[in-house]
């Protein structure tokens, strides 16, 4: 898979779980719940025969909700199990200013699970 194919595959998979899913930045006036995801760097890729045999992309998903124990969080983690080579829940914050709970996951994706 090319870089863009991986990103489209990953983003469309997330959008299937959370209908209000944004890439890079949230939409103006977006009401919770919504997700924002973004790729931000290359992770540990695999080099072979003097070329990049497998490019690993690193990024994040932020999910904002007002619902305590929101089941979509579990859906996102199931999605990451199916899609990401590596992931972890990097932060959970409550925003007193907005009343939103903010979950953030970091992930590495190589695209190998696209065909599985």
């Amino acid at each position, binding site marked *: 898979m090319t870089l863009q194919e991986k990103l489209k595959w990953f983003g469309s998979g997330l959008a299937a779980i959370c209908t209000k899913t944004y890439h890079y*930045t*949230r*939409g*103006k*006036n977006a009401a*919770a719940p919504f997700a*924002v995801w*973004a790729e*931000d*760097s290359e*992770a540990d890729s695999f080099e072979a025969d003097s070329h990049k045999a497998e490019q690993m992309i*690193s990024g*994040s998903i*932020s999910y*904002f909700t007002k619902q305590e124990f929101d089941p979509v969080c579990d859906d996102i983690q199931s999605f990451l199990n199916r899609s990401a080579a590596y992931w972890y829940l*990097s*932060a959970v*914050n409550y*925003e007193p*200013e*907005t009343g*939103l709970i*903010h979950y*953030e996951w*970091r992930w590495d994706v190589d695209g190998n699970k696209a065909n599985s």
Partner: protein
Amino acid sequence: MATKLTVKGIDELIRKMEELGDKGKEFAKRSLYEGAGVMANSIKSSINGIPTRPEESDPKSPGMQTGITPTQKQGLVDGFGITKMIDTGTGVNVKIGFGGRNADGKANSAIADAAESGRSWIQPTHFFSQAVNGSTGAAQSAMEQEFDRQVRQIMP
């Protein structure tokens, strides 16, 4: 068929190994500081790379804002540091992070967290995790080199 392996100077080697055993933890501590220094420098550069915005962010404004204020950035620069060595008994470690408050009275650790992970109205920068990921290899190399250097001093 047989072969013979001869080791000469074994007493001297044993003495040096014993000496290394006594100093091993001290070597590890010095090496850890070398690695922590490499990682800290990377994070410092990353702090400088966080975009700045002129005004305080408004959680009620639509969309997302980018970056932190100059006061907040200065707070991160001033409040960044490495802790003293922590001996856990089974190993040693240091922590790299933020302490204190900035000129606005906000906790630097909270500002760093908001800049790192973002908020519903602030774009995340991941300045910290990217700096850590990007410098882990260099930090490990620095630790290995420092440890080797110290070992060679007693086992040339």
